[in-house]
């Protein structure tokens, strides 16, 4: 249905062009991942040979598993810490609370290259052997901030009424959080967790500076592989990565709704109520 009246038709064209611009690079990767030929310029036939090549490449497969492992552990740890921190920050009155809140934004605005180099230097000075653990530690640093921002936003719109109602009805402060606040926060916590998973899974810069020899996370692995020339396998790997990321962002939007909440994850993420 055409909305409004006298809406200029050229707006459709502008919109279409913008979307084409947005998706052109992605489309190329996805399209060439199914190429029958070993060319990055010419499409010829349709095949899954590059996906097979990906799966049969032990190092790539190992890297995929490493990336999933990193993202999973990062998600669990930073979601727990971030949620606890969000509760603490929002409940602390006065200046302390607002300063704690502002400090939390710094990891989000720090250039990733700076964060990467710093982490590398820090680990070197402490004499820590670089491994999956160091990557996970680095990922957790910025992920906590994401979780706090999302969860705190939800807490702010919720207000303190429900928690006070729980106290009023005889719940101890701990019971109030467990029985009332957390269930109401669940959609935001899940959404934050899914975002963190997606961010950690495709992070390159931090991983690059904090990775050990093997196994390397997938984005770092792809980068190293490029030094020996571009293989169309990269397209298959890229498409898989994109699917995983899209899956988790999709879950961030859909899970809260699937769980029968009133509001969708979209509302949680964009802060808009429906």
């Amino acid at each position: 249905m055409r909305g409004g009246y006298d809406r200029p038709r050229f707006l459709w064209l502008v919109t279409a062009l913008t979307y084409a611009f947005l998706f052109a690079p992605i489309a190329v990767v996805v399209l060439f991942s199914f190429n029958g030929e070993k060319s990055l310029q010419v499409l010829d036939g349709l095949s899954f040979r590059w996906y097979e090549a990906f799966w049969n490449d032990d190092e790539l497969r190992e890297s995929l598993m490493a990336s999933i492992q990193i993202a999973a552990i990062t998600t669990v740890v930073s979601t727990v810490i971030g949620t606890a921190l969000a509760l603490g920050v929002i409940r602390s009155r006065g200046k302390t609370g607002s300063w704690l809140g502002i400090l939390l934004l710094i990891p989000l605005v720090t250039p990733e290259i700076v964060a990467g180099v710093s982490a590398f230097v820090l680990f070197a000075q402490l004499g820590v052997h670089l491994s999956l653990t160091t990557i996970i530690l680095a990922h957790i640093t910025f992920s906590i901030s994401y979780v706090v921002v999302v969860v705190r936003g939800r807490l702010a719109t919720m207000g303190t009424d429900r928690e006070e109602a729980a106290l009023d009805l005889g719940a101890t402060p701990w019971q109030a959080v467990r029985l009332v606040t957390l269930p109401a926060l669940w959609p935001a916590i899940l959404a934050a967790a899914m975002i963190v998973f997606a961010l950690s899974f495709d992070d390159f810069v931090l991983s690059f500076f904090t990775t050990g020899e093997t196994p390397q996370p997938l984005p770092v692995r792809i980068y190293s592989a490029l030094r020996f020339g571009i293989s169309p396998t990269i397209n298959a790997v890229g498409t898989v990565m994109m699917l995983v990321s899209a899956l988790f962002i999709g879950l961030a939007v859909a899970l809260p709704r699937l769980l029968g909440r009133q509001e969708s994850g979209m509302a949680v993420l964009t802060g808009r109520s429906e």
Partner: protein
Amino acid sequence: MTAAVELEKVTKRFGDFTAVDALDLTVGQGEFFSLLGPSGCGKTTTLRLIAGFETPTEGAVRLDGEDVAKVPPYRRHVNTVFQSYALFDHLCVEDNVAFGLRRQKVPKAEVGRRVAEALELVALHERARSRPHQLSGGQRQRVALARALVNRPSVLLLDEPLGALDLQLRKQMQIELKRIQREVGITFIYVTHDQEEALAMSDRIAVMHDGVVQQLGPPEEIYEQPVKAFVAGFIGISNLLPATVENGGVRLATGGLIPAPVPQGLPDGTEVQLSIRPEKLWIDELEDGMAAVEGVVAERVYLGTTTQLIVELTPGSRLVALEQNTSRARADDRWELGDRVRVGWRPEHAQVLR
């Protein structure tokens, strides 16, 4: 009998702002007590001090005679109905109502029985399994009420519980609340800025302004005999005429010496305000012994059951009068704009306020 709630010289400051200022208040057992005032007058803070969400900066709060300074909200035998209802959206109606009983470790069978009773009391037993978001505003309000009442608190605190409802429903719930309070016999402390609501339901009303109780008494007294200009102005419509005390009566600023109930001990020349309710004013056809002034009909507003006449005494000094539109009389048949009229009242219906 010990008072249900007693506040003694309670002060609450937030930084530089004094929300409640040396407040003394005693609420009796089983009383329907209202805290009435404009927003920011300290009524909600007073309620939160009783609930335990705020601790007094100075003074003592006593519940059933016991000082509760060190008692957290979850160990106080009071319950609150929040303005926002604050229902738990992830629980059904039944579980919302059972929440308090379960925290008290009440046996399961008893929980079931009491929840059913409470839902019956607010006529929501058929919606026991619904989620709060499936209910209308009025129904949610009743769930909040049942959730608090089911714990049989010694005091029920209500923070503008009808504020979010439309006018019709609000009127209906006022009657309903009064009935429930009579049935359960629990002390109600009711916070509102709606004077009609307070007048309709309360046994006693405390009118608050600037963190201080301006007047405390039964509804009739608050309305008929306001002791301060603020109370007269806040409760209903009131005509306030500046005057000075003279010879046992008052001389109006617009001129004219009229009889008035001047409180003892006010010497001649004291500046006062004379407060008269619009419905106490007579127009023309006055009786002997009435205080009377003259003016011109400046506005006439038809309001259905009444017609409001605005009479200008001198430029800038106006009186509002309400005339009943009974079958015998309709004000708009009797007076036209610009008519010169005499406005009078019985001296005892006016209040002399300092």
